[in-house]
């Protein structure tokens, strides 16, 4: 267990040492989104019976939780692979399951830290209330873990920074931006509503938002089930690759 805790601590320390970039920057980005979209739409749009900025904040928080959980595990792995420092974790007797757990937990920690930062920075612009805190926590933890695991998968698969960037730009960004962060999917045409239901991030955002409003597009139990199923699939796939040493051990 000491190996696991050390790897977890090392991953925490790694992002904390550059917290200005890994925590501060995403908080600022979310604040800019809120100021721009809020300024343009707050007077004209209401969703689930609340002002647009109030509707927007939980989505922004969850989006940053997910994106930063992904960024943490994926960037750590790709940097270690490219610089060769991955040998320091491959040489010791750390089981692949502990390796996985340490990276994913650290990714969740960074995601939550950024999420809390975004909430603290944006809550002053809204009348946000917490209706169901356990749902908020459940979706933040499980969504962060799912994206942390996905980040590991991307980090293992990528051999160059541009491959990871492609994963981020062509999969993660569209999935998060088209998940209902900025709108309720019921404002979309019927076809795009159906398409949105195939996006797992939609369930993460929608379930997380339920914790603030007590209202959502899909019942939270179903959303949590979808998120858990996605997490389980990505976890099994990543564990299998780690066990085989795919792209890590030649």
């Amino acid at each position, binding site marked *: 267990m*000491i*190996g696991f*805790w*050390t*790897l977890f*601590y*090392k991953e925490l*320390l*790694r992002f904390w*040492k*550059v917290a200005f970039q890994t925590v501060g920057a995403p908080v600022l980005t979310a604040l800019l989104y809120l100021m721009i979209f809020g300024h343009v739409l707050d007077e004209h749009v209401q969703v689930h019976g609340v002002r647009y900025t109030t509707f927007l904040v939980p989505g922004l928080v969850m989006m940053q939780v997910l994106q930063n959980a992904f960024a943490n595990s994926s960037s750590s792995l790709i940097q*270690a692979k490219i*610089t*060769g*420092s991955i*040998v*320091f*974790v*491959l*040489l*010791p*007797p*750390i*089981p692949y399951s502990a390796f996985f757990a340490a990276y994913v937990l650290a990714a969740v920690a960074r995601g939550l830290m950024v999420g809390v930062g975004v909430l603290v920075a944006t809550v002053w612009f809204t009348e946000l209330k917490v209706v169901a805190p356990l749902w908020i926590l459940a979706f933040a933890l499980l969504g962060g873990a799912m994206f942390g695991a996905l980040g590991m998968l991307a980090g293992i698969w990528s051999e160059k920074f541009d491959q990871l960037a492609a994963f981020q730009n062509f999969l993660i960004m569209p999935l998060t931006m088209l998940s209902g962060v900025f709108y309720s999917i019921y404002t979309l045409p019927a076809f795009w509503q159906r398409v949105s239901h195939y996006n797992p991030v939609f369930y993460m955002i929608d379930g997380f938002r339920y914790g603030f409003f007590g209202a959502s597009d899909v019942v939270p139990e179903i959303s949590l089930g979808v998120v858990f199923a996605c997490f389980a699939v990505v976890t099994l796939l990543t564990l299998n690759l780690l066990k085989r*040493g795919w792209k890590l*051990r*030649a």
Partner: protein
Amino acid sequence: MAAAVSIVDVVKHFGSLQALAGVSLEIGEGEFFGLLGPNGAGKTTLISSLAGLIRADSGSLKVLGHDVIKDFRQARRLLGVVPQELVFDPFFNVRETLQIQSGYFGIRKNDDWIDEILENLDLTSKADVNMRRLSGGMKRRVLVAQALVHKPPVIVLDEPTAGVDVELRQGLWQFVRRLNGEGHTIILTTHYLEEAEALCGRIALMKQGRVIALDTTANLMAAHPGGTLEDVFVRTMNQ
């Protein structure tokens, strides 16, 4: 003499390239063993297979009787490897690097031993310096220190003096000799043949993934009277 390292008929291909073509070796406990050969001979592939960084296609590799695949935890605990590449984690200073590496091997409080390693490798003044700020030679010393944090009985040094100044070489060899004297098995690959000649009790010469000569340094030298190990090396490779 018990086997510190046992390698039996190990084969490894990278695509169509055969990197190891059935290598068998046995290295006794407490030996100072040299693994020599030209670039591409398979030395690093063999060491990487022993360390579990590469999976051999067939054959078996054991460290003090523990199979590197089936019993990887114990095998890795018993092995310390100084990699050939000058790699480092740029986020940490020297002490943090060594503390983290100790933790990976399940050792929580290791500061006394870390201090001793730092002193022996002349790194004490650099303990709180970030890895990025160190010179190449200093980074090489930290790599050696990282391989030693868990006091492994078997230590593999893959070209540890490449690009390193004379002073460090002397200090390093003095320290490694001391470790060998205390019972640690040392496996050394180097292109500095005079170092191998002075340090190693037994030497294996590798070429194209095979061991083509294996004997005590004295016997190898005796086969070519009046010559240096470099002469032995050149003649053996050209045979």
